[in-house]
């Protein structure tokens, strides 16, 4: 073949490649624009450089695939230290590795991990016996407590608890162990001599932290979620006060307009209890972020003598310290330390000043203290920056050192409580903390990407889930209210938002998110890739409480499934396909990913069609409906379905409705229905 023919072919190929390339390039730009920016006004859409820089097919089509091929190469063996305990001789530090399902024991003289003891799934907290022989670890996703023999480093026994055990505390005689069960909202009282749960007490909604008063007479359990209140009433979150003598609930006190309490500690004299609080403004129209219009954070203080309760702000007028997690008091009762897991800070408080402020509040000299952004200046003495996501802390018995678990850098910070300087870091793993998906996890939990650091994704989606509140986000106040949805296992359930406008999580967290939610600079393309990758591929559901993996349906669940898939009413009438539950809620995600009018819009909604939500582990997501009006699943059909627009149910008897609910409770992760 002559030179010229080869040249001609080369030329044609070149032109073809160029055209395809050009054509392909343009298509990919449009595809990218559709998937990330969508139909937004001109001035946002034409940010072409950002688009080109962000164009990484790999990030969309690899890391964000829930079970994508490349995921297997992503870094996996993170420790994610979550909560701590220290032996009474101050020689050993006990660390729960939330993502490595192990309890670590660190020798504090050499900062070396001397044993790594496998325990159940998702270990949350650890309590150590006074003699240091036994450690008790709550396995939040195995609904059990592991009893660890410290010396030979084995987790011999496990004790069954309620669903989602989190905080735990030993009573003073070390005969009873109190465990806060987050998912079943109760407290297991375990008789350690029998090695079995002796009784269960009703707690607040999603209890997490639990602690015993210095005199050993009362156990306080704090909860994450507001109790279910009347529609559009302020949230109020319960602290359950248990009498350690009768081992019964003596009192239920509530912090108003506050929620997400994670830990509780006491002043050594036992007159004050301290907890961390988030103060959401979900009833206030989200017209701005400035001046704490979306979220503020506070220290909850309870006077155990008078029963008075105070909420002391931790923020400042132009700076917010998001997601306070743990609070620890020095043995001399002079200082309190709070870990801000969203702001990556430790706040140091002067407790004498706190007492002065409380007195002024009592005397009416300070009004509306809980909303006063200037007040924190009175009692905050220092802000100490930390690594990513500081969570559980523990004070050395002598009070000189504070150990801080940095969950998303796999490190334990050691703070000198006199100099208030971070002395040293104990590294818990050699895993790459800058790997893409880990960065995505760090971004998810960090408030740095919101105006004035006011909140992180965690603030409304604690534990990658939801906070049970309904926010007023739309343009016109009081209209199109939106009930926060879970972020667990979203892959394959796009589009998103109740109006189904966001085609992908890219779009959900991209330009529009920064414009209407965080109100500051949008995520950079790399960060957006990391965040979307984390949300799509890493967040899982805890095991379903009502039907374990591989378990058969119970009788009631089976009858409920028949009702869910029925095509005829009780009296034989045909049910139109569009009205059959299975039509809009087909497995595996139990959503057809389309919008429907199911008669749930109110006169304050500007559209009547809503995106079908996925029903995986729906039991975790009360309240229900797009605006959170239904407090329980039953209400969807007993109160909000008069015209049978949300499935034909009005012919059902009460026991049939109960069976349907039993089946809905049993719907677990999508993987069981593939």
């Amino acid at each position: 073949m002559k030179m010229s023919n080869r040249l001609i072919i080369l030329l044609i190929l070149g032109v073809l490649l160029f055209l395809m390339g050009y054509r392909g390039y343009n298509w990919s730009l449009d595809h990218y624009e559709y998937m990330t920016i969508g139909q937004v006004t001109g001035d946002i859409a034409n940010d072409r450089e950002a688009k080109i820089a962000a164009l990484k097919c790999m990030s969309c089509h690899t890391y964000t695939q829930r079970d994508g091929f490349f995921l297997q190469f992503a870094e996996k063996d993170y420790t994610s230290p979550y909560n701590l305990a220290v032996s009474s001789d101050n020689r050993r530090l006990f660390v729960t590795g939330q993502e490595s399902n192990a309890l670590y024991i660190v020798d504090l003289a050499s900062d070396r991990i001397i044993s790594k003891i496998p325990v159940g799934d998702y270990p949350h907290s650890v309590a150590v016996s006074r003699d240091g022989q036994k450690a008790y670890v709550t396995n939040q996703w195995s609904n059990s407590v592991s009893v660890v023999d410290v010396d030979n480093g084995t987790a011999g026994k496990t004790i069954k608890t309620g669903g989602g055990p989190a905080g735990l505390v030993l009573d003073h005689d070390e005969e009873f162990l109190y465990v806060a069960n987050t998912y079943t909202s109760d407290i297991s009282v375990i008789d350690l001599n029998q090695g079995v749960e002796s009784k269960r007490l009703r707690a607040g909604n999603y209890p997490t932290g639990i602690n015993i008063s210095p005199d050993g007479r009362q156990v306080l359990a704090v909860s994450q979620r507001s109790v279910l209140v009347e529609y559009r009433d302020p949230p109020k979150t319960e602290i359950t006060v248990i009498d350690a003598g009768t081992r019964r609930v003596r009192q239920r006190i509530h912090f108003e307009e506050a929620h997400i309490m994670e830990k509780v500690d006491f002043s050594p004299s036992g007159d004050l209890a301290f907890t961390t609080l988030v103060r959401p403004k979900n009833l206030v129209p989200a017209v701005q972020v400035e001046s704490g219009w979306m979220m503020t954070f506070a220290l909850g203080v309870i006077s155990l003598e008078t029963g008075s309760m105070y909420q002391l702000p931790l923020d400042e007028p132009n700076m917010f310290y998001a997601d306070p997690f743990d609070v620890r008091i020095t043995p001399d009762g002079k200082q309190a330390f709070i870990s801000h897991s969203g702001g990556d800070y430790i706040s140091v408080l002067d407790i004498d000043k706190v007492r002065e402020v409380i007195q002024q509040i009592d005397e009416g000299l300070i009004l509306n203290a809980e909303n006063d952004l200037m007040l924190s200046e009175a009692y905050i003495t220092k802000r100490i920056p930390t690594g990513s996501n500081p969570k559980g802390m523990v004070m050395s018995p002598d009070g000189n050192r504070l150990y801080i678990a940095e969950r998303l850098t796999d490190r334990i910070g050691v703070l000198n409580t006199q100099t208030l300087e971070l002395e040293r870091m104990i590294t818990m793993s050699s895993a790459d903390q800058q790997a893409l998906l880990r960065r995505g996890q760090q971004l998810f939990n960090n408030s740095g990407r919101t105006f004035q650091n006011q909140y992180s994704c965690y603030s409304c989606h604690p534990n990658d889930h939801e906070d049970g509140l309904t926010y007023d986000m739309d343009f016109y106040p009081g209209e199109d209210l939106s009930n926060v949805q879970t972020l667990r296992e979203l892959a394959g359930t796009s589009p998103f938002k109740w109006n189904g406008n966001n085609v992908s999580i890219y779009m959900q967290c991209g330009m529009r998110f920064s414009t209407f939610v965080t109100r500051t600079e949008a995520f950079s393309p790399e960060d957006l890739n990391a965040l979307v990758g984390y949300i799509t591929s890493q967040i899982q559901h805890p095991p379903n409480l009502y039907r374990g993996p591989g378990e058969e349906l119970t009788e009631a669940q089976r009858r409920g499934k028949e009702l869910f898939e029925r095509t005829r009413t009780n009296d034989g009438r045909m049910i139109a396909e569009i009205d059959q539950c299975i039509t809009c809620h087909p497995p595996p995600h139990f959503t057809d990913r389309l919008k429907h009018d199911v008669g749930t819009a109110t006169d304050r909604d500007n559209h009547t069609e809503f995106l079908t939500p996925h029903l995986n582990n729906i039991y975790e997501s009360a309240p229900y409906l797009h605006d959170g009006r239904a407090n329980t699943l039953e209400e969807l059909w007993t109160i909000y379905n008069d015209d049978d627009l949300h499935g034909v149910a009005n012919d059902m008897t009460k026991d049939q409705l109960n069976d349907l609910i039993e089946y809905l409770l049993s719907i677990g992760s999508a993987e069981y229905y593939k």
Partner: protein
Amino acid sequence: MKTNIQKFALRILILAAAIIALLFFSSGFVINIFDDGDSSTTETGLAEEITATVELENDSVESDENASQPMPIYGNWQVFTTEDGLPSNKVNTVKIDEGRILVGTDRGLAVLENNQWTIYTPEDGLAHRNVLSIDVDEDSGDVWIGTMDGLNRWSAGVFERFDQFNSGLANNVVYEVSADGRYTWIATTAGANRYDTYTNQWKIFNEETSPMHEPWCYGITSAENKAYIAAWGGGVLEYNNDTGTFRVYRDPDGHFNLTLFPDDGLIHDITTGVAFDNGTLWVSTYFGLGRYNGQRWWGYLDHDTGLTSTFINAVKAKNSVAYLATDYGLNTFDGTTWVTYNTIDGSKNGETIITNGENEEKLITDSAISHRFIWNMDVQDDVIWVATSYGLTRGVVVGYVDETIL
């Protein structure tokens, strides 16, 4: 003409034999199949839940049910009415909860503690002002309150409300509630419930899901991992919590308001209450009292025993003594001895009648119960609280029945 008569007589004879055979046959037959038409074993696949057949051995062995302790006699009656702080004199139920008395009236819940009455109404979170039933869970101390419009769990001062709209509660009219650690058993007008406090799940027992002839449940109690449901017109259902299966106790005489053969089974199907104590199941009905020791039944009517009236609203049992709330006085019975407490028309005094077989002793007492129509009662140690249709009465043990009296 004669042959016609003989034929006619023969026919009568055959008919009589058939009736007798039928009657005899039915008492030993599987109760739930013998029914008047709409048998409860409907086709909805419930067969597998009904297994036990009721074998009524009529052995005459007198099991030794005479309790070891002597029968207590109550007195020194102290009456509480609206003058003393009750919100209403119509007192439906009463529960002794350690240091306090919980009183259910038709105008709210009244709590007596340290001689101080505190009234709770719907404004405080009570589901409805008309409180029908109260029970306290031993483990957690949580108080369960059944009202005319929903169920409350009252725990450490906070009222939580369950109703047929926001939960699996069968119906909002809650006649009886029995808290038993993990499970709370609830009797409503449209069936009974088992609520699992650990998992927030509801089980409903009604005519669709159980051999319950009528869903109208007046009474419920639980003991030794079984629940007993008094279904109005449907006798008593015994539900085994482990196996999930039922036993049904019905009146063998069906709807004949007379007892052809004494002690042949449950005295009547229109049951109003159940109590289980020391292996004995007591059943109150509007037509007499039933007692069952696991092997055999006894039925008691007012004309031939110390029962003061066959119209019994409720029954409780403690230390082998049954306490009966009748429309004509308060009755106690330990299997042999009856004690009846009643008012005397036109007088401040009360009367206490002790009956044992043929012997009867009538005592006039200075104090009297507040009214003879009794709705319910509760007993603890040597104190009894009696809910009547006019006022609440407190009594204490003033003596015991011994041979000398009878």
